[in-house]
């Protein structure tokens, strides 16, 4: 896309977020979920990554995911708009607008390995099926079971019946399997970066207005340093994720996957650390059910285990052969 076009698309996501961003956990209801998803579907963004070559670069998709992460949203931008269409595109499957798949992950929210593992349909608002990629790269479509409880209160997850038939859709080539993993890591990571950066900005704003001892709490150096450190962490997350996305557009898949893993590893710890700092600045109010702080915390904490945990990544990155 050219810049103007991208800004237009990004602003559409931004205004969707303003309209449907949840301002308290109690607002998450089936009716509001459906309305928000409908509004997202009407934007037609699934086209961005359906054609080959895709209309949007990976960097642009990552930026949209980041925008989406800035507010607690129930919409499935990641699952049904960015991730599942990308899988089908890599497979060279004919665009089919009659179904809306999302992606299937293991119950622990990792990339599925063996065919027999317990699966969930992740980020499945508005989805009617889920795509599972096996360890060998076979992509199969599975049915959705009932809603599954999740610690991230805004993200919809459903179970996948263990006896559900798998309809094979195709098979990824080995380089495409790496591309797929890198893309999924980047998109998921970008959403977490959006969440952490937005939350830290909100904490900075709060520090300007909240007064104690007759002055704004943001004038205390201890508070300033907490926020400065959180800002550095957010900048680190932003840089490494932006670069990983760029690598997907410009570098071979091995390099892109290594960059995506580094990005995920940084964000797993730094985005969380930044959210902790932001919550500290909010004081008691961030500990209430009504405040959005815990929605951010839930997303980022669960997000740090999504697809790849720090414990998975660091030992693997320590040795030169990053692609196993």
């Amino acid at each position, binding site marked *: 896309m050219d810049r103007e076009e991208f800004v237009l698309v990004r602003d559409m996501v931004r205004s969707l977020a303003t309209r449907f961003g949840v301002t308290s956990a109690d607002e998450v209801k089936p009716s509001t979920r459906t309305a928000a998803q409908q509004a997202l579907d009407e934007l037609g963004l699934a086209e961005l990554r359906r054609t080959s070559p895709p209309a949007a670069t990976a960097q642009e998709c990552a930026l949209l995911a980041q925008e989406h992460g800035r507010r607690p949203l129930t919409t499935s931008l990641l699952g049904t708009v960015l991730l599942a269409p990308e899988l089908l595109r890599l497979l060279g499957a004919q665009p089919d607008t009659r179904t809306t798949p999302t992606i299937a992950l293991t119950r622990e929210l990792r990339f599925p390995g063996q065919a027999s593992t317990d699966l969930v349909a992740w980020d499945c608002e508005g989805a009617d099926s889920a795509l599972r990629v096996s360890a060998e790269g076979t992509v199969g479509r599975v049915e959705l079971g009932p809603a599954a409880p999740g610690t991230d209160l805004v993200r919809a997850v459903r179970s996948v019946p263990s006896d559900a038939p798998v309809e094979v859709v195709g098979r990824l080539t080995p380089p495409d399997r790496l591309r797929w993993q890198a893309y999924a890591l980047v998109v998921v990571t970008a959403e977490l970066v959006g969440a952490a950066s937005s939350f830290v900005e909100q904490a900075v704003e709060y520090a300007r207005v909240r007064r104690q001892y007759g002055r704004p709490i943001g004038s205390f150096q201890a508070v300033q340093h907490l*926020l400065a450190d959180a*800002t550095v962490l957010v900048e680190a997350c932003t840089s490494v994720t932006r670069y990983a996305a760029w690598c997907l557009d410009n570098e071979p898949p091995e390099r892109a996957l290594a960059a995506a893993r580094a990005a995920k590893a940084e964000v797993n710890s730094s985005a969380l650390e930044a959210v902790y700092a932001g919550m500290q600045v909010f004081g008691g109010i961030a500990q209430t059910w009504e405040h959005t702080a815990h929605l951010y915390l839930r997303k980022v904490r669960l997000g740090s285990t999504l697809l790849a945990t720090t414990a998975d*990544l660091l030992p693997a990155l320590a040795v030169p052969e990053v692609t196993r």
Partner: protein
Amino acid sequence: MTDTPLDFGDPADLDRLRREFRAWLAEHPLPERQSGEPVPVFLRRWHRLLHSGGWVGLDVPERYGGRGLTALHQVAISDELGACRAPGVPRIGYLAHALLEFGSEEQRLRFLPRMLAGDEVWCQGFSEPGAGSDLAGMSTFAERHDDHYTVRGQKLWTSYAQYSGLCLLLARTDRAAPAHKSISAFVLPLDRPGVTVRPLRAANGDDEFCELFLDDVRVEESERVGAEGVGWALAMTTVSYERNALDTGHISKYGLLVERLRRHAAERHGGLPDGLLSRIGRCVVDYEVLVAHARRRTAERLAGQVAGPESSVDKLLMTRTEQRLYDTALEVFPDELAGEGGELFGDYLYSRAASVYGGTSQIQRNIIAKRILHLPSNG
């Protein structure tokens, strides 16, 4: 600015420059440091060799001895040097910027070509015993006469003054005006009568920094850089260039050590103590973050963004990387701690200075809080 796509890629002319530089390097073997040769002396030989090929000051206009290209060309050269394990580019960028931005045309013509050529070595006389973080509180005073000043005071931590001919000196020129408006900058030749340079031994044993005693030193008016009172603005420009992530020489140095740790991890796979593999992985991540961050800054610069207080973010990220890396390296190579300590141990000691020089980490956080986040000041 950074919420639209960035171009992290190399434009074709950068690619061509890299190829030319590699070809030149292939014909000009890196000099070896002779035994007992102090690092600054060795680096100066290297500086001159690089200059002879036209590889210094690429972003400085041609009439001042540079090549009239951009900061990105300079970054490309830094990258290439890192990749072939050569010493970095001479660290003169921030001094050159001070002269380019604040010096008179006559001063630029007089000083820059010789600075770029390595014919004249410069040091930076900002800090004082009583003015470190609170630089504006300096007390060195330059008293005005008709066409000259007499300077009295003491500077501290002046790196490599013992190997330098010229010093970019800050001194008060007004006792009454508020601190930030009363400081001026001068070019001081260190062989002037009244100047005493006394080297201090650093924690790692190196002769890096010095004390500078100034006893009624005569400095000409023509040696003042910029108007009276602009010294503070000049100092802020200088340090923000000194801190930014575009000087990728450091980054390449970290990269070499990270690779060494990874090779060790691969050879000893599984045999490393618990947790150490993860700590090496963490260093790899820190390094990747820094590379990505420097690339992003380059891309932002390419998109027209000018340098500002965000260099404090760069400095804190660089510090995090360096300190965690050398700490881990000692853990991986415990022999470095044996006896009087190896080279890596010396570098480890120096890594502790990263959170002090160029403004401490606390000062960088103050800058981020005030100038990036615009948090209210206390009182």
